[in-house]
């Protein structure tokens, strides 16, 4: 564990240093404009004169304004501490049930993600079972499954939402279905691989015992596929989350981290965008880690880890 923590800390520290440094050229123009308006002496004077100058030159000529680049309300690039403050404000300082709480929105997104992930992985597993057992399905479905993933989901997401709404399906479900659409594919691919992982010898062996297809499935294929299943579930859950966010974008005006992202972009609230982004990443990392824990537990129980 400590073998990892120290290098990670070093890398994170390096990123932070770079980040603060990057804030200066990114935000300097606006900082100078504000400062000038408040009467500070800026070189060169006047928005017009600075319009086409390089941010680096401006930063170099006005070192006195650097601090300002880390404190703007709507910066191009918010400084890390601003994001942390925003996160703090929207998680700890407000009730978790409040609409202003990221915990609340995180929960909404999470529940749609989990629902979508459940649909997607169950669907993916069933499809994989079909593909493994039916040649016709194998040959016809697989190429189209790949093609389906090249469709820009964001383009059809609104249509899915509209069509489902006309059937009275609203709220969590449309998002979950879009999220399922993104998560089923890695699960299908992984499960097909896993269900086919028993060697020819393994398959022959159960044949010598005159096992039925169902017995072969439950006693050989399924257990053999477990490691593959977990590997693809990890990819699938991350994809699920992206799907939920994508499903939230066109819907507009609802609850969830995706809306926070979008609302942030409508009102130029960059700090809010970054906070929502970070919250999403934490959620994704958490979900993947959770599956990792389940994986380790299951594989250990199955005697597959050593």
């Amino acid at each position, binding site marked *: 564990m400590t073998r990892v923590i120290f290098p990670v800390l070093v890398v994170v520290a390096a990123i932070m240093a770079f980040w603060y440094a990057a804030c200066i050229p990114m935000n300097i123009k606006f900082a100078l404009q504000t400062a000038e308006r408040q009467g500070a002496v800026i070189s060169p004077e006047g928005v017009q004169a600075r319009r086409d100058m390089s941010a680096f030159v401006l930063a170099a000529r006005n070192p006195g304004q650097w601090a300002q680049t880390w404190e703007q309300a709507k910066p191009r690039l918010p400084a890390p501490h601003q994001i942390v403050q925003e996160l703090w404000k929207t998680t700890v300082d407000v009730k978790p049930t409040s609409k202003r709480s990221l915990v609340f929105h995180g929960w909404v997104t999470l529940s749609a993600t989990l629902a979508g992930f459940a649909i997607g992985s169950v669907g993916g597993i069933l499809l994989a079972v079909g593909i493994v057992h039916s040649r016709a399905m194998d040959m016809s479905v697989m190429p189209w499954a790949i093609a389906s993933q090249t469709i820009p989901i964001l383009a059809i997401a609104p249509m899915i939402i509209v069509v489902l709404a006309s059937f009275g399906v609203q709220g969590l479900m449309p998002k979950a279905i879009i999220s399922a659409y993104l998560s089923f594919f890695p699960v299908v691919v992984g499960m097909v691989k896993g269900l086919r992982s028993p060697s020819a010898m393994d398959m*022959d062996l159960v044949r010598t015992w005159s096992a039925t297809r169902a017995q072969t499935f439950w006693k050989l294929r399924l257990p053999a596929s477990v490691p593959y299943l977990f590997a693809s579930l990890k990819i699938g859950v991350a994809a699920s989350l992206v799907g939920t966010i994508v499903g939230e974008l066109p819907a507009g005006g609802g609850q969830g981290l995706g809306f926070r992202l979008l609302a942030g972009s409508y009102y130029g609230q960059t700090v809010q965008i970054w906070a929502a982004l970070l919250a999403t990443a934490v959620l994704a990392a958490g979900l993947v880690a959770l599956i990792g824990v389940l994986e380790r537990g299951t594989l250990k129980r199955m*005697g597959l880890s050593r």
Partner: protein
Amino acid sequence: MNGNPVIEAKHLDLTFQTNDGPVQALRDVNLQIHKGDFVSFIGPSGCGKTTFLRCIAALETPTGGKLTVNGMSPDEARRARAYGYVFQAAGLYPWRTIAGNIKLPLEIMGFPKSEQDARVEKVLDLVELSGFGKKFPWQLSGGMQQRASIARALAFDADILLMDEPFGALDEIVRDHLNEEVLKLWARTGKTIGFVTHSIPEAVYLSTKIVVMSPRPGRITDVIESPLPKERPLDIRDSPEFLEIAHRVRDGLRAGHAYD
């Protein structure tokens, strides 16, 4: 020998259809195996030993000739669970304990729970693995795994035991030891055994009948009935009779061997 043969092949042919054209794996194979025989198949790589064993086990379908097992077709025999099959690698399922692995065919064949446990105990004992039932395969050495795999093939008490190079992956000394064990087992149970091997001493040491095959297309070039007694200590391998049979096998092999 006495009575009807347990396994009988008459003019057996098998041709695989491959992308590069047909491959004739077996041609005009004739053989009788009687109850209680220990038959070894030896021959260069690719000569059809495995294919023949698989035909008996109904894992391949011959393209010509006739093959009967206990008077039935191989597929009927398979469905009647007439044999246990041991592959070269132990092929134990890593997610099941040793006992779980041995229980697997019993579950599939629908043995009652209580009997399953009893049988597992019995065969574990038979291969000298009592006490290892709760271990996972990877916690055992290669030799022990191979014994567990034999135990698994024995558990449902089929009359015929087919083994395809079961000890190919083991080192010579462990192999010697397992050879002794198999012989003891055979003596104790009186099963009919078909055994594929690459090793001349192993074939001679174990068998009552040695079938020498030659490749492309796989034919039987020699069938040697062993005059060795049933009781065989390891150092029988230095005896003149042993060496003589070994010599005959080697000559038979040499004759039909292409090196690559």
